[in-house]
């Protein structure tokens, strides 16, 4: 197990370098960020040159990348164009997005898995068909439509919630955005669990458990559910990274000042430091979440052993 983890951690290094290099090059291709700094007119030559030198933009790309990576390893993610340290931006943005993601994941697990078990055990019944239909609708409607619709209905028409989230972004205000963010994944989790449960229900070990005379809820929770969760866990694990980075749309609709907001602004202002910094952290989160998922397999399925 220990060796496996070490090997996986080592594998992350090339992935990490490759990913950051790609992002770095992509942001670079977007053009000269200084040109956009002075609005509609051209920056005066002298100031533009000084700014370029200060942000290291006069160096060749490979050297910019090396300097940047060198700084990153000492914990310095550079400075955004508005004079704020990128680490400072991160320290305000990540807690908000982590909260939002947590709520979304909780929704996925609690609602998604419950619905999945419910429908998986009652295949073909009206509950099953109903839930299937609803998930189909949720999957096919884009998130921004669901988000704007719920915001308008609950926030403006019925006045149940504030349409936007305040800058502190407490858990309470993030419930609706979290639900919107989770909606599509939630539908997938429901469907995945349902299929998996329905399949495993007919397997030998479930029949044995039932034949032993175990109580029904024990059969379902200990034997059936545990074995059926492997594909669901994979999905949710991969989803963590996706939710954190993909929250741009949800964060915009509900005015949440999280990672998505910073990324969006960074891209608009062609701010290499912000974009690369945030994406680097997201890449790390993604890699670690995947490692965690793989380790969870061993917990869920005793047949899986890592050496």
């Amino acid at each position: 197990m220990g060796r496996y983890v070490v090997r996986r951690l080592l594998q992350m290094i090339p992935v990490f370098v490759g990913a950051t290099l790609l992002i770095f090059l992509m942001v670079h291709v977007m053009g000269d960020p200084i040109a956009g700094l002075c609005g509609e007119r051209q920056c005066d030559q002298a100031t533009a040159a000084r700014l370029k030198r200060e942000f290291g933009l006069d160096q060749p790309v490979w050297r910019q990348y090396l300097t940047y990576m060198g700084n990153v390893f000492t914990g310095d993610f550079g400075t955004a164009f508005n004079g704020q340290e990128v680490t400072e931006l991160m320290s305000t943005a990540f807690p908000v997005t982590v909260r939002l993601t947590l709520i979304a994941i909780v929704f996925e697990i609690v609602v998604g898995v419950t619905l999945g078990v419910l429908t998986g055990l009652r295949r073909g019944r009206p509950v099953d068909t109903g839930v299937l239909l609803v998930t189909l609708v949720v999957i096919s409607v884009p998130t921004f439509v669901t988000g704007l619709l719920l915001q308008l209905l609950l926030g403006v028409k019925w006045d149940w919630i504030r349409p936007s989230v305040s800058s502190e972004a407490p858990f309470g205000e993030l419930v609706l955005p979290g639900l919107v963010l989770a909606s599509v994944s939630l539908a997938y989790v429901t469907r995945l669990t349902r299929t998996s449960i329905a399949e495993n229900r007919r397997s030998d070990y479930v029949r044995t458990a039932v034949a032993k005379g175990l109580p029904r809820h024990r059969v379902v929770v200990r034997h059936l559910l545990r074995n059926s969760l492997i594909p669901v866990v994979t999905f949710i694990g991969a989803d963590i990274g996706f939710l954190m980075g993909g929250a741009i749309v949800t964060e915009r609709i509900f005015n949440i000042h999280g990672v998505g907001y910073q990324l969006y602004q960074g891209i608009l202002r062609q701010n290499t430091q912000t974009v690369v910094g945030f994406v680097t952290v997201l890449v790390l989160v993604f890699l670690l979440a995947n490692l965690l998922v793989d380790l969870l397999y061993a917990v869920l399925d005793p047949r899986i052993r890592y050496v």
Partner: protein
Amino acid sequence: MLSASWGDPQNPLEPANTNEVQGGKVLDMIFRGLKRYDPVTGEAQDMLAEKIETSDSQNFTITVKDGWTFSNGEKVTARSFVDAWNYGASLRNNQRNAYFFGYIQGYDEVHPEEGEQSADTLSGLKVTGERTFTVALTQKFSTFPDTLGYNAFAPLPRAFFDDHDAWVKKPVGNGPYLVDSYTRGSQMSLRTWADYPGPDKARNGGVDLKVYTDNNTAYTDLLAGNLDLVDDVPAPQLKNVRDDLGGRYLNTPAGIIQTLAFPFYDEDWNKPGSEKVRTGLSMAIDRKQITDTIFQKTRTPATDWTSPVLGEDGGFQDGLCGKACEYDPEGAKKLIEEGGGLPGGKVTITFNADTGSHREWVNAVCHSINNALDDERACTANPVGTFADFRNEITGRKMTGPFRAGWQMDYPLIQNFLQPLYYTDASSNDGKWSNQQFDDLVDRANRETDTATAVGLFQQAEEVVRDNMAAIPLWYQNGSAGWSERLSDVKLNPFSVPVYDQIKVS
């Protein structure tokens, strides 16, 4: 107290470093300069200036009013201004608005075009007393005092220089509001300064500026009653805005004009008769239809080369362009034929495609020209990928036909709409137009000490621009605002920033 929508300022909140509306909002609340522009007429009125005297329109003696202080108690003196201006002009401080100080003597030493600066302070600025200082300009510029209402000319307290980082985190100024708390990227709370010495005390308790990523969300919050003031109504909502807000909506021209400039370094566009072709093109554009349909009336068809925010006294003249800016397909066709036809039989309009939905209106302009000339291939759009590339092509003189040009005024003066754009070799004269008659008129206007006469001369110069159609005026960009039932007296100043201190809350 009221809450208003805001965007994260692009640059640190220093007066000489803020060139966009979001940072401008804050500066307008926490600073007062020598002059202040009247929100309605756009006229520059004395604020901290007791008097500004000159005998030759080139050397000015400025006296600062007594009794003004910064909100930390420090007195506002002549030095507060001189230090601030020197800081703004100095190359090493990377101030985006440094060019504002370009008319002051010694600017080329503290801010050379390339290389290191050879001086730290502007030689044209001298403190002569506690409340007096002198300004020497490099050329005659009679309306110079009227430029001093812009934020870049605001005074700065010593705290700005002594502990710059702390100041940027929580700016201290001399305006009617104090910064109470500032959480970067999300919110700034401003409160009324009780001891504000000026005549324009805030008529409300304070303003909470909230950062919105998306102006649609801000608008939704306004409808839900969570926000009092939105100063940028999103385009998709413009159709509903009258139903949603009733009369609580404002849509007025800002100090921004869009034009089509021509490459006068290209012989095809600079030969006898081509002014007729250019005028013909102008007459072939149906401005009203484009502003109505594509911009949903958030632009106003242009009838001169300035902006309505100047006001009649300031030099705006509705209809100065006359027939040349009216849609007249027949006349257009005739004029273009008289002028020898379009060079090569066609015209391409170059623009940058990355921002501002320029593609839509350029296509519409081309469509309008094609219809007027009965030729499907007369006009084509030529998009350039990024603004940076677009700028590079312009400075590299690679344009072969008309190209998009926008001008956002620095200060509400007719001079600012003409000299930087059309004077020979001026900083933003992208088409390299040059006309002796125009230059002479501008020089004369700058020498003139009487403002009304100066404005009249500038208007004559503008007529030269018209007769040569140096650039085709398209439309004035509007600023908009919507507000809740609690507010009254909402106005926009010439820079499209709400005049927060005059807003009343019930």
